[in-house]
């Protein structure tokens, strides 16, 4: 939880403190004393064979941390998990990025990584849906597919030799994202799970949790196939009915309010440093609705404290069940 910059009254401060302490006592505190800062030596039994992972380095035969963080041990692997670093990509991760450049035969996307990721033209489905070789005409029409500042959802395909990332967007669920909000949070709050695409029927909203910390909340779009969308637009334009066109691109007020509510819920969770997944988000949103809290009040201190308390309760309940 990084510098909670909220004006908290004395009682709120006490409540928040108590909730956080409760959470700490509940979590598996096997390595509570394993937080290190840079150049601290990591306590390891040097007789056992161990592997040096991220965030560590060898100094005169001693294992030393290179970032500030928590020491994690998985079997023989010892590494330091930093709290604030950039996204660490793995093959098969779902990420959301913003196009920064249209280059010959590829797009460059900004994801939260030390380099921009590359989406090759050949890794994208063509608008007409046919699987074919990309011709020079396709290359010239790249801008009709994605332009600068478009938000795109894709999957990590592999790493290049120089460390840069290659993405692919070959399936229907990847591609350009429209009519919604992009949110940036710390990457470590989004953990790997079975489902990254969530369709919240109750609110009619699509929620995509990108593992790089970019989260997309948008109006639910039925068919991601741009072919159909193009067809619809063409027919609209052919009949040139202005009213109909306007209606098509108009998002109803309620959906927009829901989008904002969910976005604020995610902001609150990320400020408090809680893991962000669909369940928790839904609970936070229903909490806010049940308490009749206004959307903009969700970012206020009172709601933060409530969410912290609720989370503490939830975790203690689940612990007791076990």
């Amino acid at each position, binding site marked *: 939880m990084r510098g909670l910059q909220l004006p908290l009254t004395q009682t709120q401060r006490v409540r928040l403190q108590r909730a956080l302490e409760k959470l700490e006592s509940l979590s598996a505190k096997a390595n509570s004393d394993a937080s290190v*800062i*840079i*150049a601290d030596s990591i306590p390891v039994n040097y007789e056992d064979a161990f592997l040096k992972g991220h965030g560590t380095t060898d100094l005169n035969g001693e294992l030393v941390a290179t970032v500030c963080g928590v020491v994690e041990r998985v079997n023989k692997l010892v590494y330091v998990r930093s709290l*604030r*670093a*950039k996204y660490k990509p793995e093959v098969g991760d779902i990420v959301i990025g913003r196009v920064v450049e249209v280059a010959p035969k590829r797009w460059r996307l900004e994801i939260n990584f030390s380099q921009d990721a590359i989406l090759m033209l050949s890794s994208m489905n063509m608008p007409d849906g046919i699987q074919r070789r990309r011709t020079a005409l396709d290359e010239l029409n790249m801008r009709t597919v994605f332009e600068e500042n478009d938000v795109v959802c894709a999957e990590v395909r592999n790493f290049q030799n120089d460390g840069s990332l290659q993405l692919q967007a070959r399936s229907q669920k990847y591609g350009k994202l429209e009519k919604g909000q992009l949110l940036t949070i710390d990457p470590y709050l989004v953990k790997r799970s079975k489902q990254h695409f969530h369709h919240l029927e109750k609110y009619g909203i699509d929620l995509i949790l990108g593992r790089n910390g970019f989260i997309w909340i948008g109006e639910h779009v039925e068919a991601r196939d741009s072919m159909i969308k193009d067809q619809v637009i063409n027919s609209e334009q052919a009949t040139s009915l202005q009213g109909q066109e306007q209606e098509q691109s108009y998002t109803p007020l309620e959906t927009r309010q829901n989008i904002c509510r969910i976005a604020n819920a995610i902001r609150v969770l990320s400020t408090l440093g809680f893991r962000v997944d669909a369940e928790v988000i839904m609970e936070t949103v229903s909490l806010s609705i049940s308490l009749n809290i206004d959307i903009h009040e969700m970012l206020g201190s009172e709601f933060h404290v409530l969410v912290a308390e609720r989370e503490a309760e939830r975790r203690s309940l689940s612990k007791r069940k076990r």
Partner: protein
Amino acid sequence: MEYVSHDGLRIDGRRPMEMRQLCAQIVDVAKADGSAVFEMGKTKVIAAVYGPREVQNKSQQIRDQAMVRCEYSMANFSTGDRMRRPKGDRRSTEISLVIRQTMEACILTHLMPQSQIDIFVQVLQADGGTRSACINAATLALADAGIPMHDIVTSCSAGYLNSTPLLDLNYTEDSTGGPDVTVGILPKLDEVTLLQMDAKLLVDIFENVMQLAIEGCKAIANYIR
């Protein structure tokens, strides 16, 4: 003018071997990946780190390591007179270069190829020792951003006035034109990364003064931890 009185007190009431009060804080600069504020007495400096991110100028990209850029600036209101300082004036460029070289020595740049790390340091209040405060603030900001480093870098200045080595000069003592030694070290590895001096000193006295500055750096390192 007497900088050290008969009882051994300096102008601001400190003893010769005493450092000014330190205060370090991790703050939240909105768009930066890491940021920190460091105060040494009345000198206050804010550092913001962006990166590692894509290199903006492709021609300067280095294939197998990260490029480190640094910019030092003083705010208009930082000194006694409100003065508008031009961006590229010689002192700023020199200090930017110095800070860049110091930080580059300790960042593990080969872990982030073809990327760029930007360090922006701005002096909010200047009362001597801004160079050291900048380096300390930059170290904290880099640690906050989660950028892997060999070790933290701490820096401190020392001088020699009235035949006494003085630790951590403030502006009045610095502006006399006497010797001013700035040292930056990696405390755990016990290595010196920065050594600068103004004016002249005899070699033996220089050794004393440098030793004193190194002690100051170690004290700062303890404080930061």
